[in-house]
């Protein structure tokens, strides 16, 4: 498509930039712009005419999770992508080391920095966050009971379950059982202490109803977080 009439070229460029050129006509025009540098310059000119109006718009802060997603899409992220990570070495390195500061802060808050912890204080705690760093779940272990609290619930699902894993420094993740998508639960897996031994992090994976059919995580990691232990633990 070639457009020669200067007024028509202006009118089309203007309505394209204004946004009133819609549907197939918008697509046709966009194709014409690709092939016609003069028309492209005209669009730029109309952008210069009209876009300064956008300065009047009152700012609205985007959600905090957006920036990590942008970084992830550009491959800049220190955080992993949500799927296919179970075999990824750098993911485990990230889990093991990346959260030192958060873990220390968590310990300070949970156990207090002064004095011995009370007898009923949890032996370990973890805050699990999504790959975008949004906290979703808090886990505490005390006297063989694992308390799981979902702080930001997932929508209910009829076909899938969430399974909790403890990730040891070496070797495969160990299942701690299925956890709820909302609310709280207390898990009492047999030999919890041995399961948690050497564990550096918790992670929750998306699994078919009833949990992983293989005994190893099969779905995407929904959230994860490092384990912070009290001195007693």
């Amino acid at each position, binding site marked *: 498509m070639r457009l020669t009439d200067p007024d028509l070229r202006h009118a089309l460029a203007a309505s394209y930039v204004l946004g009133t050129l819609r549907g197939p006509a*918008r697509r*046709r025009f966009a194709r014409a712009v690709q092939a016609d540098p003069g028309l492209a*310059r005209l669009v730029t000119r109309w952008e210069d005419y009209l*876009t*300064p109006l956008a300065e009047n718009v009152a700012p609205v802060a985007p959600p905090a999770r957006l920036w990590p997603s942008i970084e992830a899409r*550009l491959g800049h992220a220190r955080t992993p992508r949500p799927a296919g990570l179970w075999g990824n070495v750098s993911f485990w390195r990230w889990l093991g080391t990346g959260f030192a500061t958060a873990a220390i802060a968590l310990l300070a808050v949970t156990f207090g920095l002064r004095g011995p912890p009370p007898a009923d204080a949890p032996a370990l705690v973890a805050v699990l966050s999504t790959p975008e760093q949004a906290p979703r779940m808090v886990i505490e272990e005390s006297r063989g009971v694992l308390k799981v609290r979902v702080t930001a619930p997932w929508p209910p699902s009829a076909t899938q379950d969430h399974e909790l894993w403890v990730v040891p420094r070496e070797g495969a993740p160990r299942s701690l059982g299925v956890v709820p998508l909302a609310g709280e639960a207390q898990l009492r897996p047999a030999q919890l202490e041995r399961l948690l031994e050497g564990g550096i992090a918790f992670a929750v994976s998306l699994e078919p109803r009833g949990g992983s059919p293989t005994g190893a995580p099969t779905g995407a990691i929904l959230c994860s977080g490092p384990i912070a232990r009290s001195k007693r633990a």
Partner: protein
Amino acid sequence: MSAGAPEADDLARLLERVSLGERAAFAELYRATSAKLFAVSLRIVRERQLAEEVLQDSYVAIWNHAAEYSRAKSAPGTWMAAIVRNRSLDLLRRGSREVEDVDEVLAGRLVDEGAAPAADLERRAGEHAVRECLGELEPDQRQSIALAFYHGLSHSELAGHLRRPLGTVKTHIRRGLARLRECLERTGAVER
């Protein structure tokens, strides 16, 4: 981009560093511009989730195309806002709001006219020129253009919103834009 926001020169310098692949500069650019650009998109697409999608796509595009940004052509805020506006409008046409809503007068002429494109002179519009020139329009024209610009309203949505016949709205927009251009060229912001 506005009062309290970084100056155009600061943004241009950031974009220059971004074009060299400097991630820290990109993070700074995001901090300086994301709230404004999110608001621009949110008004057009009207759903937070869509606006988030637009913003992600836009910053990925800004990172990838920063080297193509030229200070001589556009103000940096304008360049980025145009990316966000285009993506927002593109998203609208993908969704349920898709309508073949082109002004028929223009559509009838959207045909191959067969000759070489005319060259355009490059000259940047003065920063406040557009607002001054909008002030010269008739109130109906000004209102229609502002609603279309800020809220991404189509001709038929404008007609519903303003309780005016569709044809009247289209005329307001078309004449308003033509007068806007006359004014901008007359005030020396741009030459033909």
